[in-house]
């Protein structure tokens, strides 16, 4: 299960990195006359049963205003391979290869999905890692030290939690310069998300550390001469693994979507840069549900990411007590925990 998760994650990341080769077209290339075109499904057998090299059928636009297309099954368009540095595109420029259809600007959804993966995956994974790092540190120290430090850290984290991020973002946007290069936007968003996500993590980690701190194994480790930092990081924080696993699975999609929300105050990646959040946002229309469901494919992609992460981080459940990775601590814990009835 775990390896499957890792493989899936690896495949997704590889696809994102290999986008310039895998994607049939550039993410911002608009095909005039193909707005919201349906997917062109590759076939190898035609209707008569004969085999061919992979091909697609031609679509024709029958009503521009209603965006209705009809498939012409008599016209086969072969795919062309390794053309112009891309694995597969259509051989006929009049019928582009739309594996997942086209969006409302006539841009290939599949290509945008791949290019968008770079932004969305990159942003959400880095931001989540940041949030986990900051949150675990803050929560860990607060839960471990207790007293005034705990109070201070938790109150600061409460303040960050409560302050509406949109307000800060709007004020921030006006202070920054007008045209923000994508890299700056990336760094900014990562920082904002990491800070916004940290308090949630901090709370949970703090609770876990506080509870684990009372356990004898922690006391034992200290009495054996371990420093506070070592006790915290090596022995107490790992207990929060399960909680962190769930939080990560929750934060990653939230950040992907958050990018689209923040772009409302001008703090997002400008069009035509593709990101799953903005793609989904543009696809959130009645027509998409009714007529253009392929526009919602970023949601499926997000689910795959979430699934992969969950599989990777799922801590073993009912595992035999003595055969776990952090052996000594667990052994200590097992021997000293009171039995409840």
């Amino acid at each position, binding site marked *: 299960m775990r390896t499957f998760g890792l493989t899936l994650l690896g495949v997704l990341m590889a696809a994102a990195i290999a986008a310039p080769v895998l994607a049939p077209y550039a993410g911002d290339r608009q095909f005039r006359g193909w707005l919201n075109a349906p997917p062109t499904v590759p076939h190898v057998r035609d209707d008569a049963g004969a085999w061919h090299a992979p091909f697609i059928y031609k679509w024709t636009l029958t009503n521009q205003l209603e965006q209705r297309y009809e498939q012409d099954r008599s016209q086969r368009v072969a795919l062309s391979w390794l053309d112009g540095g891309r694995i597969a595109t259509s051989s006929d420029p009049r019928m582009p290869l739309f594996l997942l259809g086209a969006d409302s600007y006539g841009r290939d959804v599949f290509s945008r999905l791949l290019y968008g993966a770079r932004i969305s995956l990159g942003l959400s994974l880095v931001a989540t890692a940041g949030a986990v790092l900051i949150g675990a540190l803050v929560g860990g120290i607060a839960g471990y030290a207790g007293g005034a430090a705990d109070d201070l850290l938790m109150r600061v984290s*409460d303040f960050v939690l409560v302050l*509406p991020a949109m307000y800060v973002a709007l004020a921030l946007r*006006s202070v920054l310069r007008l045209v923000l290069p994508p890299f700056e936007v990336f760094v900014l968003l990562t920082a904002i998300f990491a800070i916004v996500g940290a308090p949630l993590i901090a709370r*949970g980690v703090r*609770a876990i550390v506080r509870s684990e701190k009372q356990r004898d194994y922690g006391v034992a480790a200290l009495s054996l001469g371990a420093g506070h930092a070592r006790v915290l990081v090596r022995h107490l924080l790992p207990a929060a693994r399960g*909680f962190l696993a769930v939080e990560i699975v929750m934060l990653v999609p939230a950040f992907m979507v958050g990018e689209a929300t923040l772009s409302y105050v001008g703090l997002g990646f400008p069009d035509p840069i593709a990101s799953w959040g903005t793609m989904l946002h543009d696809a959130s229309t009645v027509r998409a549900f009714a007529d253009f469901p392929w526009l919602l494919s970023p949601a499926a992609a997000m689910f795959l990411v979430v699934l992969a992460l969950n599989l990777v981080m799922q801590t073993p459940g009912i595992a035999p007590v003595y055969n776990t990775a952090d052996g000594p601590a667990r052994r200590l814990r097992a021997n000293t*925990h009171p039995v409840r009835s």
Partner: protein
Amino acid sequence: MLAYFARRLAFALFLVFAVSSAALVLARLAPGDFAAQSVGLDGRTETMAEARARYGLNRSIGEQYGVWIAHAARLDFGQSLLFDRPVADLIPERAANTAILAFTALLFATLVGLPLGVVSGSRPGGLLTGTIRAASLVLLSMPPLLTSLFLVFAAARTGWLPVGGMTSTTSTSAGDLLRHLVVPAAALALPLAALFERLQSQAMSGVIGQPYILATRARGIPRSRVIWRDALKGALGPVSSVYGLVIGTLLSGSFAVETITAWPGLGQLMLDALRARDVYLVAGCAAAGSVFLAVGTLLSDTALALVDPRQKEQIEVRG
């Protein structure tokens, strides 16, 4: 104990003050102001100036803040520029609407999410666990905008439920409210149930592996009792630690859900206020949000203390 609560209360008040002040200042710092927006592009400078003066926006940030604080101390939170009504009337009204939604969603999410989490956490493999887990992951990965739109779309297509709105024109019955509540509450509850399920599942699987559970089973106690009584008691930590926070966030309202389902709540108000640069409403909304979150974190910490006795004690580890 009392001292603890008193300290928390004092901090909560400070937090409310700090956050609403920050919100007001941020709203003033944002480009454009309410007067410019309401007069519009074709406003003459004199008209703009008069509107600013009338709304009190011609004062410096510091001055405006000072006036606001002085009034707020007397519990007068100003007049909303956008709605031309006292902020102190507008916010409780909207907050009540959101509260109805929040508690319904919370109820559903708890009643569905927690038990499902217990089930999936206590059986490592199997079809049931796999299905529950997959469903949770789907719900966690879907953006709230999409979920709400989908539910409203389904309501419109099937005709079973009202398409958005909080009440019908004609009816004031509870039944009518309940019918309108289904879609927005579901939009909020489903991802939340998924979160609870995942947290609970994770916690359960951690506890199930403990030797004392094994020991209890060895003593002959039936499996279901062991799971639902003994294991569960020890596994409520994570959910409790976020529960209050979840309450606080729900009470502040979700803009996406409320806008799509036309539910006039606090989440919608907060963002409308920001867009319109309605400084007083912005400060009021931020204050309300911080009240809810402060209450939420307090509830969380209390729940945690109740659930996990280890939290209450404060053993000094330093030698």
